[in-house]
């Protein structure tokens, strides 16, 4: 079972991101469960959403305390909420930021995990470029597809088109694709450095 | 001879109907009337509500060709009309709860609409307690949505069925079991009664009217008018309660007439928030004439009397007369 935890702030589409991720997994013929954290929701307040993906029916319903994947939509959360709590040693981390992991001051946290699985993506910039609004949720899903290979870009595109329609859907798909390509390049670089 | 002849009811013995053209006669005058609330019910002698309900529902049955369903709130009417295992009702009738008659009516109307049964109409009815207090929310909701229901309130100005407790329709100074005629401020010392007809008008519904059991023709005409319209409609009928008002059981109709003739109970019609017709006072009388026969106001006349309160009630009557134009303008000689 793959457990993904998404952090962000109210109004950034965190819950939608988890839902789209579950639709993408469904599109690939897998079982998926997505649900929001149950805190008081308010624009700007920290929000957490969860997504489980498996090849069999998912019965577990507790909040995800040991995620395999962490997606952080808002880097200002990094020093307010312990987003890394419970992350598995082999876990993936994807942070929406122009800065690198080290530049974000996360170097020592990075030590605990696999360096090539910790990346940042300027998702808000990409979103602004394609969608015209700072909504990084779909963008980050495209990046995640590249990062992990656990979800395909096609499935992400399908999920986006299920949630949104018309121009907005296409803009989000373009943004997600852009992030996918961006991350592909970044991973090649990371591997090149590691070698 | 073309001059219309006006006949007035002068008590329970009415001569007018037999001399009128058939189409001008009341529903009650007809042997074919539906008798929707059949005899054998357990109402008190002189019950204004039993009378009002019979008048109103029979008129509604005729107006709808007997295609009528009634929702009834808990209260005197419901209790005395359905003593288990009997029922006096000759039409489909449901009693649900105290405060939800309007909502139940809404539900029935929705069912008829969804089933395409356009010819079947709905009335919801209750006393003042079930209408102005506990049923107020549902009533307002029904008005606001303009649901196709005629709501009839039989107003005897207190919670009679449970022993004459004060309701928001209880007039100022009246004695009830929870506003006893004792102490420095005897009777209902606060408020003057919630004006449901005006509140109904504020919802701008198609039709609002008030009536009393003293004028049968008027009441029936208003029911007929209401049933000729669709949407939310409200009829507020003053129905004296001999027991609760401390009046003689033969005075029911007389007291209803006096309520009108003093100006304390304005009789009028309104459509979409605008008054369209009023029943003028033929022979204006001071409020004392109305108050004296009722023991619930006896404390106003005991000892030295309570001139201030009587004056306040008179002022209320005067205001109604002014506000609704209830008295013909008299030319000064």
């Amino acid at each position, binding site marked *: 079972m793959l457990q993904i935890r998404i952090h962000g702030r109210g109004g950034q589409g965190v819950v939608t991101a988890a839902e789209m991720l579950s639709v993408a*997994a469904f599109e690939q013929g897998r079982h998926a469960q997505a649900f929001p954290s149950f*805190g008081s929701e308010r624009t700007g307040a920290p929000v957490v959403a969860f997504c489980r993906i498996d090849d069999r029916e998912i019965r577990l319903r*507790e909040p995800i305390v040991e995620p395999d994947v962490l997606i952080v939509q808002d880097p200002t959360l990094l020093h307010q909420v312990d987003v890394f709590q419970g992350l598995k040693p082999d876990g993936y981390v994807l942070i929406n930021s122009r800065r690198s992991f080290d530049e974000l001051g996360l170097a020592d946290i990075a030590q605990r995990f696999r360096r090539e699985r910790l990346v940042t993506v300027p998702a808000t910039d990409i979103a602004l470029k394609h969608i015209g609004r700072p909504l990084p949720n779909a963008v980050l899903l495209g990046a995640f597809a590249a990062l992990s290979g656990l979800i395909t870009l096609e499935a992400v595109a399908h999920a986006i088109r299920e949630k949104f329609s018309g121009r907005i859907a296409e803009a989000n798909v373009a943004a997600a694709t852009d992030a996918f390509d961006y991350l592909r390049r970044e991973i090649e670089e990371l591997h090149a450095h590691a070698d | 001879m073309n001059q219309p002849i006006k006949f007035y009811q002068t008590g329970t013995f009415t001569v007018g109907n037999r001399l009128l053209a058939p189409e001008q006669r009341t529903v009650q005058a007809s042997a074919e009337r539906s008798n929707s609330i059949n005899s054998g019910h357990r109402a008190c002698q002189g019950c204004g509500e039993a009378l009002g309900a019979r008048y109103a529902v029979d008129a509604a049955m005729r107006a709808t060709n007997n295609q009528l*369903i009634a929702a009834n709130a808990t209260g005197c009417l419901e209790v005395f009309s359905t003593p288990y295992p009997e029922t006096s009702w000759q039409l489909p009738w449901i009693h649900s709860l105290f405060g939800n008659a309007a909502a139940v009516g809404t*539900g029935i109307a929705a069912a008829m609409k969804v089933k395409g049964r356009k010819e079947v109409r709905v009335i919801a009815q209750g006393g003042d307690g079930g209408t102005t207090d506990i049923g107020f929310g549902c009533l307002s909701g029904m008005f606001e949505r303009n649901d196709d229901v005629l709501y009839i309130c039989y107003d005897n100005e207190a919670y009679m069925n449970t022993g004459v407790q004060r309701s928001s329709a209880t007039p100022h100074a009246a004695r009830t079991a929870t506003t006893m005629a004792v102490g420095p401020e005897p009777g209902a010392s606060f408020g003057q009664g919630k004006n449901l007809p005006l509140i109904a008008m504020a919802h701008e519904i198609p039709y609002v009217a008030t009536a009393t059991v003293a004028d049968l023709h008027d009441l029936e005409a208003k029911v007929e008018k209401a049933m000729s319209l669709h949407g939310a409609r409200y009829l507020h009928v003053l129905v004296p309660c001999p027991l609760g008002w401390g009046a003689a059981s033969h005075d029911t109709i007389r007291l209803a007439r006096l309520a009108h003739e003093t100006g304390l109970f304005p009789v009028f019609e309104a459509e979409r928030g605008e008054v369209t017709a009023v029943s003028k006072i033929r022979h204006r009388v001071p409020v004392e004439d109305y108050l004296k026969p009722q023991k619930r106001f006896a404390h106003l006349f005991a000892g030295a009397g309570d001139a201030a309160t009587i004056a306040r009630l008179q002022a209320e009557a005067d205001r109604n007369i002014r506000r609704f134009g209830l008295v013909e303008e008299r030319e000064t000689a």
Partner: protein
Amino acid sequence: MLMQIEGSQAVARAVALCRPEVICAYPISPQTHIVEGLGELVKDGTLAPCEFINVESEFAAMSVAIGASAAGARSYTATASQGLLFMAEAVYNASGLGLPIVMTVANRAIGAPINIWNDHSDSMSQRDCGWLQLFAESNQEALDLHIQAFKLAEELSMPVMVCMDGFILTHAYERVDMPTQADVDAFLPPYEPRQVLDPAEPVSIGAMVGPEAFMEVRYLAHAKQTMALERIPQIAAEFAQRFGRTSGGLVRAYRCEDAETIVVSLGSVVGTLEETIDDLRAQGVKIGVLAIRSFRPFPLAAVRAALEGAKRVVVLEKSFCVGLGGVVSTDVRVALSGLQLHGYTVVAGLGGRAITKSSLARTLAEAVADRLPPLTFMDLDWGMVNRQLEREKSIRRSGPVAENLLRDVGSVASKVA
């Protein structure tokens, strides 16, 4: 057809497939998405003919349903928590009159203190009124149960409450198999009322009944629920035959065959329990889960049959009878009367507190070792409780309880889970 949608939307579509004629509802978290979904289906013409009424309170919602149902229309509403209480008088009225209304209760805690999250206190508060109460473990089951509910309600002329955990199920996206209209039509015939307001054949409904017949009228409600004990498994079987999957029924046993310890529960927590039980079984513990699907009528015989071979029974419930302990466990005890086994009540998850596999594993290990007290509150912060009790001992004007405790908890928003 398989789809990945929100639980509320799955329920809305399933209800729509049942061709309700009158839908009336008042918004309350966490049921809102259900009625919004239905409202949209009516407005865009997908669900027709149907009257969707925006009522002004939950009391009005149930009252409108009563009027509509009595006039022969298939009627539906949904609520939760405070809303269920606000309509309580009408809820009793509906079952007392024998009207086959179907209602979704998106289980939520009841205040004070105000709390929008999941537990079972709302449906439990109405367990005596005569409504049948079915509990769903997953969104698939939630949608399936609504279809079964209309059939059950109309056959018996009794209203049915379908209970699904608020947020945990209503707001979760899951894979569901949505039936076709043709299949639902074949399973659920049009509503044929036992009593109906019709000018062609006038009847009076809602008479006052005194001591001479009240007991008999109320007994008949009980008799109907007793009939339901037979009918519920049959309807579940008919459903399985037509739709190809098991949903509903009275109870469902998981790994109970040779179990020495059986955990009894309802609703979505059963899923987490099954995962926990699998882990414990792998460690050699002989433990199983009994999920109660029909809470009213309470399946005494089925529960007894499932539990009588065990040494100990742990009732894990999201409900709480203040002053006594368990709600569900009290009913389970009735089923077990005369049998000698250890019984434990574990109250968990009140007000939406997460029930985790690790807490369950720890608690069940204690139970298996017979170290658990008869009544426990899982994951209760005793420090917080005792600090408040001390506060109250030391000063009269100790202030509002909830505010004191929240000050102890500190900022919630920065917590991860």
